[in-house]
Structures are given as structure tokens and as C-alpha cells.
């Protein structure tokens, strides 16, 4: 029996590894490519053993506009998230505690907004932004991304807040705490995993966002995904070393984030229904 089980286990593991490798292969190719020379990257069969070079990265970051794109991505996704999380936390608290009569309807609306495809809203938003004069402005994009992240964050956070007993709030209130004290000193520390989860989920969404950045953004507010599409071509063809280096640099921040906070992400994905252990 043991032997059969051991044999099966080996098969499972081999299969899993195979699937993982197939999915990981393109990523490995692009990461390895970032360290290859221009001729090496397109060699057939692909070179697995080669002398790594950092030239591609040096070339990438010495381009006039590239550091700016990275900075844009960082600044906009982070500040949009900070706004979104603060607003969502307070909104979720209000939904969870004061239970306005239309809570369920509003929560449904929030979720269904998330279902609307981006292309459906991009034209009206564009017209609106053009009218306000927010095209190619930081504040415009940051607020847009914050707005886009709020519904999902409210959903995640409401789940977490519902899990925090109202007795905590009441104990603080009876002992003389203010509502702000309850929000930030009593409740917030208890939903930290939810905050982190909401933060990272949405951060990755903004980090990867292409369409709105392309339409609402402009030269000053370009983020990395759009920069990809506009800078891909140089020297009359696809510049593979540039692509590989930029893709690699682009991947690193989210990978680090997800790695560091992976346990929070799991909790976040279950909307706070799986608790403890964090």
C-alpha cells in the first residue's frame, strides 16, 4: 500500500512540476534573456549556459524616459492605493457598523461595478477628463485608479470588519474613546491582514493597468505597461533585449510584495472568512 502511494505521489509531483515548468518557461526565458546579448537572446536552441551581462539594464535605465516611467508606476499605484484603502476602510466600517438600510443593494452595486468591462467606461471617462482638463495629470489618474480600486477593497474589508465584534467598539466608546480612536486604534489593528490583502490586490491591478493609462494618460504620466507598447520597436524591429530587461525589472516589485505578504493574500482572497493564523 505504502509503495503504491509513494509511486502515485511521484507521478503527481512530476505532473505538477511539468505544468509549473510549462507555465514558467516563458518567464524564465524573458528573465534569462535580460542577461543575454542581443545575438544570444534569439539563438536557437535557446542558450542555457552563457556569460550574463548587465548591459541591458544599464541601457534600459540610461534611456532618458524609462526611469520616469518606473517612477510614475510607483508613485501612481502607491498613492492611488493609499487613498483607496483609507476611503474603503472607512466605507466598509460604515457598512459594517451602521448598516444603512440599503447596505445590501450598495454592496451589490459595488461588486457589479467591478464587472463592467473597462472598455465600456473608457470613452465617457475620457470625455469627462478632457472636459475637466485632467488628461495627462497625476491627480486625475491617481483618483481614477483609487476609484477603480475602492469597490473591491470595500468588499474585502467589510468581510474582515464584520468579523471584528462590535463589543470592541462599544468597550472603547463607553470608556471614553472617540469614533476615530475606535477606527484606527481598536479596529484597524485587527483587520491589518485585510488591509494588506486589499492593498496588494489593487496595487497589482494598477501596476498592470494599460488601457486607462493609454487613453487618460499622456507623455508625463505614462506607466510601464504603456511604455512597453510605445518603446518596443526600435532599430526597425522588436528590441528583445530591451523587452527582456524591462519585463524583468517590471516583474520584481510585485513578486517581492506577493512573496512577503503571501499569507495575507490567501486570507484576503477568502474575504476574511478564514481567520487566525496570520
Amino acid at each position, binding site marked *: 500500500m505504502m509503495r503504491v502511494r509513494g509511486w502515485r505521489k511521484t507521478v503527481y509531483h512530476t505532473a505538477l512540476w511539468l505544468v509549473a515548468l510549462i507555465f514558467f518557461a516563458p518567464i524564465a526565458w524573458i528573465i534569462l534573456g535580460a542577461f543575454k546579448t542581443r545575438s544570444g537572446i534569439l539563438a536557437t536552441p535557446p542558450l542555457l549556459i552563457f556569460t550574463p551581462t548587465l548591459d541591458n539594464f544599464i541601457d534600459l535605465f540610461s534611456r532618458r524616459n524609462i526611469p520616469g516611467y518606473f517612477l510614475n508606476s510607483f508613485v501612481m499605484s502607491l498613492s492611488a492605493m493609499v487613498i483607496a484603502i483609507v476611503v474603503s476602510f472607512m466605507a466598509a466600517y460604515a457598512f459594517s457598523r451602521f448598516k444603512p438600510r440599503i447596505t445590501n443593494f450598495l454592496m451589490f452595486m459595488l461588486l457589479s461595478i467591478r464587472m463592467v468591462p473597462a472598455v465600456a467606461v473608457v470613452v465617457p471617462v475620457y470625455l469627462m477628463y478632457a472636459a475637466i482638463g485632467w488628461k495627462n495629470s497625476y491627480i486625475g489618474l491617481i483618483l481614477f485608479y483609487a476609484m477603480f480600486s475602492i469597490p473591491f477593497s470595500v468588499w474585502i474589508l467589510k468581510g474582515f470588519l464584520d468579523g471584528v*465584534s462590535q*463589543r*470592541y467598539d*462599544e*468597550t*472603547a*466608546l*463607553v*470608556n*471614553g*474613546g*472617540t469614533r476615530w*480612536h475606535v477606527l484606527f486604534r*481598536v479596529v484597524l*489593528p*485587527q483587520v491589518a491582514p485585510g488591509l494588506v490583502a486589499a492593498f496588494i490586490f489593487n496595487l497589482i491591478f494598477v501596476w498592470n493597468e494599460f488601457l486607462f493609462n493609454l487613453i487618460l494618460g499622456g507623455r508625463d504620466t505614462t506607466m510601464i505597461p504603456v511604455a512597453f507598447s510605445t518603446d518596443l520597436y526600435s532599430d526597425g524591429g522588436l528590441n528583445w533585449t530591451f523587452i527582456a530587461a524591462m519585463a524583468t525589472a517590471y516583474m520584481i516589485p510585485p513578486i517581492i510584495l506577493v512573496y512577503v505578504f503571501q499569507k495575507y493574500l490567501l486570507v484576503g482572497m477568502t474575504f476574511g472568512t478564514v481567520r487566525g493564523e496570520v
Partner: protein
Amino acid sequence: MALAVEFQNVSKTYSGTKVLDQLSMQIEANTFTVLFGAPGSGKSVILRLLTGLEKPDRGRVMLRGEDATHIPPGDRNLGYVPQSFALYPHYKVADNIGYPLQLMGMPAAQRKPIVESAAESLKIAHLLDKKPDQLSGGEKQRVAIARGIVKHTDIFVLDDPLTGLDFKLREQLFDDLRAMRESLNATFIYTTSDALEALILAEQVIVFDSGWTIEAGKLETVYARPNHVRTMALLGFPEANLFDGTLENGVCHSPIGQFRAHTHLNGGAASVKIAARPQHLQFTPTDEMIVFDAEITLVEDLGGEFVAYLDARGLSLTALVRHADASELTEGRVRVGIQPEKLLLYDQDGYLIGQGAS
């Protein structure tokens, strides 16, 4: 008689349901007052109004003789032990206990001795450096109580603080709570739906049923002669025996026999509810007792006492017997007696109208 708390015609409606309807009650200062009622009888709402977490729709809430209806909870200066502990998981025990003082703006150095002496009095001084999730249920409870009493004030509100604890832990806390009430010389307002807790802890008891006060007073008085049949049914352990009878010309006809009754009713026949506490049924009847035959169907050992379940010609009764009389308790037919004056009579609306007479 100074009043710590007074409700004057307080009404409260939640989404169309009247939870409290014109409720009035008074809680004397420096007493251990238990608000007693079945779950859902409105006790928690009363505490929420008392602490200021909710405002009444109508009526006034008076604290220390002054109208407090619109004073926010934090300014009412109450010690508070919430239901289900609510210890802050991100604070150490010491910080949990010191939390009310911290909110008052007391510096840490000043808090320390107060926290330590509160922990001392609840025998949890060794836990001060732990986090709440490292504690057992009973320890958490003690921490929650310590946090509730650490504030220097005269009114403490305890919202059913012993629910969910096993009997042994509760028993240990009973003594501590009473001792604490006396040493603080303050008013303790305590809600529970557990009759035994009410009987052990209360000096004063207020009995609630579906949002109104059935009766209030000294525990001994309320227990001995409940003014309402619901109090009789709720407040007592084991539950009181209740059965129907008819009263006619001063004589009560009941399934356990006839007996003369002192009531303020005269004349014609009236149906009544008869109540007898299990403690008053005896298996060694004497001459002046009402005596009837019954069958013992089950005997339950409570340790020091026995509960006997009886069947008296189709009427189910319970009797509580002390250990000494246990030899009488063999299953089968027995003769059961009760002093007629121990039988209380209630009218159809549930109000006390009199008692049996020998």
C-alpha cells in the same frame, strides 16, 4: 435611598419592533443589582441605553439623579464589562486592563500600580505580560472584569459577563464579584438570563419579560413572594411547578387536592395558576400539609441535592430534596406533602392574588 440609575418611561423601537415600551425602573446606589430575564427580554437594550450606546426614542435615562439621556457614552463615567470579553488581541493583558485609564489620559507610570492591584484582586497578576490569545476562557473573563473595574467610578455595568464559562469558573467568580462590589462600595448592574446566577449574586433584582419590568425589589422578597407568575417561573432553580386550579368561596380545587386559600378575591369561581417551588415539596409529609400520591419517574443527582421528577395523576412536578432525605427516594409510589402557605395563587393575568392557608 439614592438612585444610581433611573429609567423614566423609556421606549425603544428597532426596525418596527417595540423592544422597550414605556419602561421605568430604578436602581439603588451601592447595590448589586441583577437585571434578570430570558434571552431576548430586552436586557441588552437596557444596558445599551444605560451606557449611551443607543438613545431612547422616548423617555429619559437618569444617572446619579441627573438627566443623562443625551450624554455620550464616554462621558458617563461607567465601568464596563462587555459580553464576550472583547479583549483587544493586539494589546498585552496589562494594556488591556489599563485601557480605560489610558483613554482617560493617565500616563503609563501612574497606570501601572492600579493595573497591578486590579490584577492582584482577580488573581491574574501572573498573566500581565501575555496576549489575550494565550489565555483560557476563565482567565480572559478575569481580565475583562479587571478592565471593567480599574476605573475609579461608582457605577459598573456588567453585561452577562459569565456566559459561556463552565460552572466551576463561574462559581469562583461569584464570590470575587460580590467581594469586589463591597470593597469598591459602588453600584454593580449585572445582566443575566441564568436564574442561578441571579439568585447567587443579586442583592436587588429586576425581572424583565419582553421589554417591560415584571417586578423589582430585594432578591429575598422577590424570590419568596413573586408578584407575577412569570417571575415565579423564571427566577428559581429548578423551575417552579405551575398548575391550574379553580378558586371558589375561599377553597381552591387543584390536581393535588383541595385547600383553603387567603386571597383578595371574593365570591364566584375563578380559575387560578398555582405555583409551588420544588424546594417545598416533601416526602415526609406531616399532618398540616396537603398530601397527595405521586409516582417518582426519575431522580437526578446534583451532588448535594436530588431532583425528583414526579407524576401525580398526570400532573408533572419536580421536587428538590436534600441529601439527608435521599433514602426516601426509591422509584415508585410515594406520598408527597407541601405546606399550604407555600402554595402561591396567581390570577389569569399572572398577578399574585394570595396563598394557601392551613
